[in-house]
């Protein structure tokens, strides 16, 4: 009969499990406090080539959690203790929202290279509340029109009305994020997409219904990018450098433009949580991301490309060409940021978008 050195018994097992749990409970917070920076981030901050230099220089491990939106971040925060997370990457139109919830820590403007960030990108309406800085812009881009220049006339794409043209029926895809699409339709109607009211909604809905009738499909990031790159469609409304710049080498026929009437601009920024126990490291992280080296890597992330907020980004001439670097001053001037709106108005826009998708 085999004899074991340590006899198995339930009491033994329970004692061992209890000791292990106690050791983990003590060790885990200690490990978390010393040597880690916990970041809620979009997918473009997850490249090892971006994070490793910062980790090596500061003796810290960046522990990131992928989020798709500010709402995702709020859901995670709701399941976390205060202090579990240090830094957040967010849509800067949500700065005021998170500040009102008491989630963000004030930042010192002097700590960051605002002198080399374009004024429209550093707009205090997006980064500050009552004169206090809460987020630092790091990357931006456009929801405008991306297209296959061998199938759609680039000159024709300069007119915002092009996707509504019957000539392109069945050759158009629409990105399924309702905020920039509603603003783009408003722009096509000659309205100011920064200042939409209830009275504007019926006309915008009719415009969107007409666009959907002319389109082959509406889809998420992956679906519309796949449709454009495979040639299933030739035009993507809501597309921009985030669709085309990263794949220029493989698909040089794809490009984007901002029509004469203008386009919509997305913008993401970095904030530090008010409850963070690691604020000085959070500041260093933001400073690294805003450095020329950090900005170049962030702009050309394997997840999606976009314009670096810092004009000193160490991009190569080829990368700058793919990002249409020389045209940015004009593009910024002719683009509008995402709408900052009340939750009640946001609900109305969502309901309208659902009606458009149902074709009602």
């Amino acid at each position: 009969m085999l004899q074991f050195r340590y006899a198995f018994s339930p009491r033994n097992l329970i004692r061992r499990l209890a000791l292990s749990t106690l050791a983990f409970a003590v060790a885990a917070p200690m490990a978390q406090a010393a040597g880690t920076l916990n970041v809620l981030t979009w997918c473009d901050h997850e490249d090892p080539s971006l994070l490793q230099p910062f980790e090596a220089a500061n003796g810290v491990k960046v522990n990131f959690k992928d989020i798709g939106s500010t709402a995702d971040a709020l859901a995670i925060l709701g399941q976390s203790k205060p202090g579990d997370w240090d830094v957040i990457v967010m849509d800067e139109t949500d700065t005021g929202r998170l500040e009102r919830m008491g989630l963000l820590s004030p930042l010192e403007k002097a700590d960051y290279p605002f002198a080399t960030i374009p004024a429209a990108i550093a707009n205090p309406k997006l980064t500050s509340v009552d004169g206090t800085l809460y987020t630092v812009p790091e990357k931006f881009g456009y929801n405008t029109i991306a297209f296959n220049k061998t199938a759609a006339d680039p000159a024709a794409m300069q007119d915002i009305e092009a996707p509504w043209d019957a000539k392109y029926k069945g050759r158009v895809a629409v990105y399924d994020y309702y905020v920039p699409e509603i603003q783009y339709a408003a722009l096509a109607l000659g309205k100011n997409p920064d200042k939409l009211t209830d009275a504007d909604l019926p006309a915008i809905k009719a415009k969107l219904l007409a666009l959907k009738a002319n389109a082959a499909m509406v889809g998420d990031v992956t679906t519309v990018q796949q449709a454009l790159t495979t040639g299933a469609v030739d035009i993507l409304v809501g597309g921009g450098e985030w669709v085309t710049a990263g794949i220029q080498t493989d698909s040089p026929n794809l490009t984007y433009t901002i029509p004469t009437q203008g386009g919509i601009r997305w913008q993401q920024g970095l904030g530090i949580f008010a409850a963070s126990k690691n604020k000085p490291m959070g500041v260093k992280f933001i400073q690294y991301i805003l450095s020329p080296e950090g900005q170049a890597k962030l702009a050309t992330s394997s997840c999606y490309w976009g314009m670096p907020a810092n004009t000193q980004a160490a991009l190569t001439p080829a990368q700058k060409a793919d990002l249409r670097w020389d045209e940015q001053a004009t593009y910024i001037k002719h683009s509008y940021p995402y709408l900052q709106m009340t939750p009640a108005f946001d609900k109305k826009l969502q309901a309208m978008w659902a009606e458009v998708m149902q074709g009602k």
Partner: protein
Amino acid sequence: MRRLAGFWFALPALAWILFFFALPVLIMAGYSVRPLNADGTMGPFSVADYAAFFAEPAYVTALIDSIITTLIVVAASTLLAYPFAWCIAYVVPKQYQRAALIAAILPFWTSYVVRSYAWLLALSPVGVVNKILLSLGLVGHPLMFAYNPQATEFGFVHFFLMLNTLTIYASLAQINPRYELAARDLGASAWRAFFEITLPLSIPGVAVGAFLTIVLCIGDYVTPQILGGFRELLLPQVIMMQIQRQLDLPMASTMSLLLTAVVALAYLSLQRWLKMARL
């Protein structure tokens, strides 16, 4: 005493169901009656979100479309799965039946999302289906097989065909073959023996497959999101819209509870056939 002993044995399973099913549903119900205020904070107890749901035609249409899509998928999956399961049970030699079942489910070892995107590639205007049709001269221009409700239904049926095959096979395999032999001995034709003996006895398997299809299909977000092209918004997609931007958990909970109610109705309709002991 024996009854009490049975209760203690069942207690762990009961506790599991209470903690991981009943409690979350109750929490969701609690959220659904605390609609958000205009400033985004939770308001007082109210059924305003239920009223708002039924007052918005697009949301009601999404619920109806979800039910219709699910019924179509159940019907198509069952009609396709039954002959397949029948062949495995009665045509394939016994020593090869397990291999046949494994072959049936093998394609589903890939990720559900990857499979949906693969169908998108196959069905898109530049996909392999259109390329074959164009090269054979059967069509003059690509047909739109993807980005519509039919593509969503096709993607669903591909998955649930496997599920229904397994449940129907399990039911067929339990039927004593002597019943059909006896019917044939007494003069029944093969078709009559099937319709009056085999089919009725296999209904539990059909019902379980149908119920599982309803439960999984009506709440599925991935397939309509990838294949549907937003031609028809289903309720799970509308639920995601509530969460993605404003984190409107009360409205999302309201919609989710309505889906739960639909599933409960489906169970009540099918329960007389949901005899798990027969599987």
